[in-house]
């Protein structure tokens, strides 16, 4: 991997351990403007940890991260370790959506969406509200703006969580298994919102178990294995022609459960999964 000056995000040699367990063993990656990177891999392969290192919700022990004006060196002795103030600025530029939505239950939908734009970005209330309502209109939930999150379905909550992140006008969006906690019939509405962001040209990294969706939407697929990027390429190549046995085995396991789960529901995943299975050698 050669140095790439034009990359939006540049990661070099990222290491992360929890005690004696090394979860990330030196990840290097360039992500360009407009790329949609899907990250697949078995649980424990480090893919979620990697995503959480990008906005430094987890502090890596070593490695470098460059993004916009930020250039961090996570080495303990480095003078370029991020300060608390750096992290606030960085995170304001990177949106993140979690598996469990994490909407704030004591605030209405609208309050959830305008909180960070007002308190972190310093937008005036009127502007933040107009922006939030436009975003909520886009996902068809503007009439729910004065509802509390518990009154919403899981799919609606997750879409509000996505809008809450978008309200900060991030340069990059991180999606951490955003459909894993949803009932199967609600997965589609969330995935189609993610897909529409991809069409808008949003730079995104998504950790996902929806192999079919990864194939449809992403421009690039990473296979994480034991704390390293084991495969990296266009989704059709990586998913249809896996080079390693480990990825082949992984796909077999995942697609098997995918097909079984999707048996009763027509979600985006099933078509893609079948297409891949059909073309397997």
């Amino acid at each position: 991997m050669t140095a790439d000056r034009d990359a939006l995000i540049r990661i070099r040699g990222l290491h992360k351990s929890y005690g004696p367990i090394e979860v990330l063993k030196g990840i290097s990656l360039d992500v360009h403007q407009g790329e949609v990177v899907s990250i697949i891999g078995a649980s424990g392969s480090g893919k979620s940890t990697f995503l959480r290192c990008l906005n430094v919700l987890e502090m890596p022990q070593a490695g470098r991260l460059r993004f916009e004006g930020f250039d961090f060196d996570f080495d303990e002795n480095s003078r370029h370790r991020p300060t608390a103030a750096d992290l606030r600025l960085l995170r304001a530029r990177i949106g993140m959506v979690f598996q469990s939505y994490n909407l704030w239950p004591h605030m209405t939908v609208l309050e959830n969406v305008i909180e960070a734009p007002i308190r972190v970005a310093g937008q005036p209330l009127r502007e933040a509200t107009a922006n939030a309502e436009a975003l909520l209109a886009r996902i068809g939930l503007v009439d729910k703006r004065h509802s509390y999150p518990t009154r919403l379905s899981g799919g609606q909550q997750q879409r509000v969580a996505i809008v809450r992140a978008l309200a900060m006008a991030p340069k990059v969006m991180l999606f951490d298994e955003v459909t894993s906690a949803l009932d199967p019939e609600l997965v589609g509405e969330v995935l189609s919102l993610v897909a529409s962001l991809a069409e808008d040209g949003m730079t995104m990294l998504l950790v996902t178990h929806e192999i079919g969706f990864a194939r449809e939407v992403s421009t690039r697929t990473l296979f994480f294995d034991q704390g390293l990027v084991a495969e990296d390429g266009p989704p059709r190549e990586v998913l249809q022609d896996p080079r390693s046995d480990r990825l082949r085995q992984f796909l077999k396991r995942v697609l098997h459960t995918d097909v079984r789960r999707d048996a009763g529901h027509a979600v985006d995943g099933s078509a893609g999964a079948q297409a891949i299975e059909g073309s397997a050698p």
Partner: protein
Amino acid sequence: MIATWWEGFEPYVAGFLDASVVVLVLSICSILVSWIFGLLAALGKVSRFRLLRWLSDFYIWFIRGTPTLIQIFIVYFGLPQFGLRLSPFVAGVIALGFNGGAYVAEIIRSGLSAIPRGQTESAEALGMGRSLLMRRIILPQVFRIILPPLTNEAISMLKNTSLLSVITVVELTLYSQTIIATTFRPFEFYIATALIYLVMTSVISQIAAYLERKFARSL
């Protein structure tokens, strides 16, 4: 008959009112002091520094394991030995506040631990700093959770003010005792005293119930 019964009370109504006000002021002061001690001890318990965690643990252990009356005696009778002579009122507020703080600390700690980690993370991921997310995201949720146990704590604080009669704070209990000493009618006057306490504790419950209803819509 009712008329003569009432005539027996009438001379003391103003005195009862004054004594009730003393109870209210004592309670409010002690509750505020207990919140301060409670918040400090709760923060101490989750502190990075072992000494602070240890101090908080010791404080809570001591307070919960010893009688409130003894704690009051230590503050009022014990501290003057070290030159710290406090008025009965101040000693009483400090003793009750210090006592209540241990219970409030446990309530706050359990409230904090009831907030899922994801609430903090989603705020951090949007660029919120520590104090902003505490103020806007965590504490408002903690407050809703701890309101019921905090109400119970306020009620027992109000009732505990009667213990201060033994260090000569002229509150409701001591006032009724002085009347009984001259009228020799303990039944009527103790019942009357109990009813006044009951009115005050009921008012606290009602206020808390109102606040809970107000917040219930969102949880």
